[in-house]
């Protein structure tokens, strides 16, 4: 039996919604098949008021073992570092987080707000939000760069806005079944099994990316969304086209650009007007190139790819 506690800071509950929609395994499978004891969760927990406080104090004192501490949402420090804007069970949530992180065998941050601060930490960041161990790309966050949970791992970061349901449940199961030590994490604490390949890996528009044929409107079936509509698929680490959403599709398959939600900078360009769903350019050349490609190489590649592209690349091949 592994005890799991899930708390929410500055959050919209999107990751909770996502978690409750998980299928492989489902949230119920966690309990029935994998022996996870969900001590408390904001949408599922039964305890209220004093009872909840008693349980939290029991965890902090070590009387109840805390195997997996899942945190959703940013750590709110406002006003003036006190954390009073986000109180929970009689004290600032950030104080609970500090105490619980000390006794947890594994600490898991779910969603962008918990991992890097996410949308709440967007400038001017009025809630003084930070992620558990990062603020955007800077290591540190609320728990500090040296933090390790009792099992010896830093915070396991499962980013996304929201995170895919199966990323959450599969990592929780790995940890609960004693395979947490097998997890390899990247420099941002993301499990490599999910966050080494790109959103573009498995995208159905890869042919159009290769032949430089652009989609010019949302939902078009032909064309790649990188050139005009701001798709960040080539530089975003996520398995969105390998582990499909609702087991059906992905943003890019449906004709919507990837917004790069698993990367620390999300939301990019602080959501300045004109930066969302629009490729940012300098004299017509994209500011952000596919990872590892430079401008000169990119222009040469474009000319060669276009010259070599077959006629069908310009047609809507998904309709007969």
């Amino acid at each position, binding site marked *: 039996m592994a005890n799991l506690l899930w708390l929410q800071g500055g959050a919209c509950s999107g990751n909770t919604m996502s978690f409750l929609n998980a299928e492989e395994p489902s949230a119920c499978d966690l309990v029935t098949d994998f022996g996870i004891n969900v001590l408390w969760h904001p949408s599922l927990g039964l305890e209220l008021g004093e009872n909840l406080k008693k349980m939290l104090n029991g965890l902090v004192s070590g009387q109840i073992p805390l195997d997996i501490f899942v945190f959703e949402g940013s750590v709110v420090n406002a006003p003036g570092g006190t954390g009073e804007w986000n109180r929970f069970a009689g004290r600032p949530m950030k104080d609970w987080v500090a105490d619980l992180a000390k006794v947890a065998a594994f600490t898991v941050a779910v969603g962008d707000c918990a991992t890097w601060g996410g949308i709440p930490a967007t400038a001017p960041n009025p809630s003084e939000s930070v992620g558990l161990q990062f603020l955007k790309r800077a290591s540190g966050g609320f728990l500090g760069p040296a933090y390790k949970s009792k099992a010896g791992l830093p915070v396991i970061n499962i980013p996304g806005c929201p995170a895919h349901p199966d990323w959450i449940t599969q990592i929780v199961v790995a940890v609960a079944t004693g395979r947490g030590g097998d997890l390899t994490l990247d420099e941002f604490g993301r499990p490599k099994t999910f966050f080494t390949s790109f959103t573009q890996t498995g995208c159905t528009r890869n042919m159009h990316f290769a032949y430089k044929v652009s989609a010019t*409107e949302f939902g078009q079936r032909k064309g790649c969304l990188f050139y005009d509509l701001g798709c960040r698929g080539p530089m975003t680490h996520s398995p969105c086209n390998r582990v499909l959403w609702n087991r059906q599709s992905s943003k890019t398959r449906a004709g919507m650009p990837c917004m790069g939600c698993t990367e620390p900078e999300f939301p990019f360009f602080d959501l300045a007007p004109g930066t969302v769903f629009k490729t940012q*350019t300098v004299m017509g050349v994209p500011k952000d190139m596919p990872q590892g490609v430079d401008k000169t190489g990119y222009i040469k590649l474009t000319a060669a790819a276009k010259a070599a592209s077959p006629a069908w690349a310009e047609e809507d091949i998904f309709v007969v």
Partner: protein
Amino acid sequence: MSIDDSNQLLKTIANLLANGLETKTEPFPETDKQFADVLTELRQLDQNDIKGKLVVGGFVNHPYGPDQYRCMECMYYLVHRKWCDLPELAVPVEPDWWCRLWRI
């Protein structure tokens, strides 16, 4: 548009440019706002106002600028159809031409 109609229109455009049609190559729409403004101007034209599209789009019948940018590398250019696929333009073009809506 049929292939014949497209070829005919391409000839008409080539003639207009060869005869020295003055077009607005400058300013280059550097920001997305400026780009959107040019698109708005184009949308106000009649779809068949070819001359208007060429002028507002800043068309030239040769590569442009120090880097010699061309339709050929532009993301809106469809090589096989010799076609500009930017919905606001939607005209046949030659690979060595350029306009200020060029994007790669």
